């Protein structure tokens, strides 16, 4: 591959960034075509897949991110006390509704769940998994909620386009009319 000498710089950029780095940003820094970035990184992931390497590159939240391999999660856990920050069932249900129905109001969420959802929404806002995305042009102009980039990272999704694919993982009797985002 012609540009192979750029794989070092790409690895350095991903390491320094920490956050997912969009391919076109990498491309503009290195003055190459974004297409080449995808090819180069695909090669790098391949090269990193050997057991001697502990890192890999994942495509998440509209970018590339360098991270440790999932196989070593337990080893890394020994490094630190992991604060358990699991989302409650209620929070997950609410997040699912926001993800698939966005932009969505609190009232719409509540009518699906059949319970008050103020607290859960506050929790999700605090954890930066959802955000206010505007106001609905209706009486009282209620706040509309949508998911964030953090949400994509938290669940390892490349982009919102992947959500319909999630719907396909559901049992057959629920596949009927999952709205695409």
């Amino acid at each position, binding site marked *: 591959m012609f540009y192979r000498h750029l794989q070092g710089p790409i690895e350095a950029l991903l*390491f*320094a*960034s*920490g*956050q997912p780095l969009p391919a076109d940003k990498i491309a503009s820094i290195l003055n190459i075509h974004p297409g080449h970035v995808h090819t180069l990184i695909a090669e790098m992931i391949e090269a990193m897949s050997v057991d001697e390497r502990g890192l*890999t590159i*994942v495509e*998440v939240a509209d970018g590339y*991110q*360098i*991270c*440790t*391999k*999932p*196989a070593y*999660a337990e080893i*890394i856990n020994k490094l630190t006390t992991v604060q358990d920050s699991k*989302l409650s*069932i*209620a929070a*997950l*249900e609410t*997040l*699912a*509704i926001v*993800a*698939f129905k966005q932009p969505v109001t609190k009232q719409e969420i509540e009518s*699906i*769940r*059949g*319970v*008050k959802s103020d607290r859960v929404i506050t929790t999700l806002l605090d954890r930066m998994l959802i955000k206010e995305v505007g106001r609905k042009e209706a009486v009282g102009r209620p706040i509309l909620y949508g998911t964030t980039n953090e949400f994509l*990272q*938290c*669940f*390892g*999704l490349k982009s919102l386009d992947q959500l319909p694919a*999630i*719907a396909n*993982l*559901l*049992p057959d*009797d*629920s596949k*009927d009319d*999952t709205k695409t985002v």
Partner: protein
Amino acid sequence: MSGCNIKLESFEGPLALLMHLIEKNQIDIYNIPIAEVTEQYLAYLKAMEEFNIEIASEFLVMAATLLQIKSRLLLPRPVITEEIIEEIDPRQELVERLIEYRKFKQIAEVLNQLGEEREKYYTRLPQEFARQFPPPAGLSLDDLLRAFAALWESTAEHFAVIAPEEISVKDKMHDIITLLRNNNGYMEFNKTIIRTGSRSEIVAAFLALLELMRLKRVVICQERQFAPIYLTLKE
């Protein structure tokens, strides 16, 4: 049904409780035996009461809904000859809500799995890059000197001395009394500003007025906020 053998779990809401009953009894969601489900639902609420758990209003609304559906199903249907009119099943709305709720419950489970999968990947926190301010290029000491010289020359003596004008409260008190006497003892406050009309005169006039009121020389009246103030002389 005895309340003793109900293991009291806590449910997020009435739909969660209904889903639980439906799953436990392996009920076909499209054909819910309302009588049976209602009975179990009410038994659960009763058990909650016995344990002195406060029952959220949503649960009671659902109980009422279930009873209403049950009663509508019990009502005899009018027999219509020949043509069979498609009746709306009273359970339909409830079933739709349950199906929608169940869908998101399942999506939530999928999200949970995805989250657990993703948690195995450790990442670094973003590197903090301090904003860099490179020095401006191509400047010399001469530029600095020139800039200083230009500034030095521009500060020519373009200024005038303005003497503060003193209008004392005492003077204004005299003004006001004199003016009132010349105006039959009645006039508007604004009309007492007769010297420069400056801010300091207005302040002085106002203080003078307050002083005159304290001395009971003048009475004022004002109909509402910001309306003209009228002065009356008391001789």
